[in-house]
């Protein structure tokens, strides 16, 4: 009779513990789900920019959010509640890093656009001056003493390169990539300096 009573008490305690556990889980489920939803929402707000500007950082944060979702799927709300603050912190850090990187990129674009304005006025004049000289030299019965046939031929192929490089630079600028356009335009200008030297053309 006493043994039966003990078993009964144990059963009651077990039921009570199970009930408390269920209630406890139920109490954790809602805040856990809410935290995951907040993390997903915060990540969605920066995802596009982050994918362009800081893809590897985004990948890492996405993996953390996915891990939280896995814990939700497993019903491990305690793990979700424990891990969510760090994930939210990582998302906020990523958000700040994306904003900083965006500002840097915008500043670089603005500087490149201004530089393009000067290069796009300058380089075509360089091409024009070289083209003019090569056209005239092409009509000459012989080349001047100071210019070898080899140098003349190199200058002609140099001008062809300049033209194709300039077309690429212009295309890059038209497609919105001012930074790349400026890099290419600087390449054209450097090539132009070489050609001017080959032709013995010292401006001024």
């Amino acid at each position, binding site marked *: 009779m006493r043994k039966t009573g003990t078993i009964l008490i144990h059963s009651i305690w077990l039921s009570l513990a199970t009930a408390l556990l269920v209630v406890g889980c139920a109490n954790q489920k809602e805040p856990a789900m809410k935290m995951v939803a907040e993390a997903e929402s915060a990540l969605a707000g920066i995802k596009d920019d982050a994918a362009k500007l800081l893809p590897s950082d985004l990948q890492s944060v996405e993996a953390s959010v996915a891990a939280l979702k896995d814990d939700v799927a497993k019903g491990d709300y305690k793990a979700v509640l424990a891990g969510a603050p760090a994930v939210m912190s990582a998302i906020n850090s990523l958000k700040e890093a994306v904003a900083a990187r965006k500002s840097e990129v915008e500043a670089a674009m603005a500087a490149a656009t201004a530089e393009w304005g000067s290069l796009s006025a*300058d380089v075509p*004049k*360089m091409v*024009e*001056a*070289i083209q*003019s*000289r090569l056209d*005239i*030299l092409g*009509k*000459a*019965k*012989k*080349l*001047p*003493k100071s*210019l070898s046939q080899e140098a003349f031929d190199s200058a002609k192929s140099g001008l062809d390169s300049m033209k194709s490089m300039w077309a690429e630079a212009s295309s890059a600028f038209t497609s919105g990539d001012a930074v790349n356009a400026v890099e290419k335009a600087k390449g054209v200008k450097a090539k*132009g300096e070489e050609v*001017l030297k080959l032709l013995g*053309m*010292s*401006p*001024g």
Partner: protein
Amino acid sequence: MATEPVKPAAENPYTQHYVVKKGDTLSKIAEEFYGDKMLYPKIFEANRDVLSDPNKIKPGQKLRIP
């Protein structure tokens, strides 16, 4: 009514220039820069704003060599 000298389009900063010396002619300058004295009209045309006659150039004149 006086005829105004022909003004070239905006000056190209990459155009080469030459300062005329005593005894120079456009033909001589053309031979030096182009290897062919017969190409002197190219220099004359590029300097129509300062030259009215290809046979009249003065020492000290700064000419464009296109």
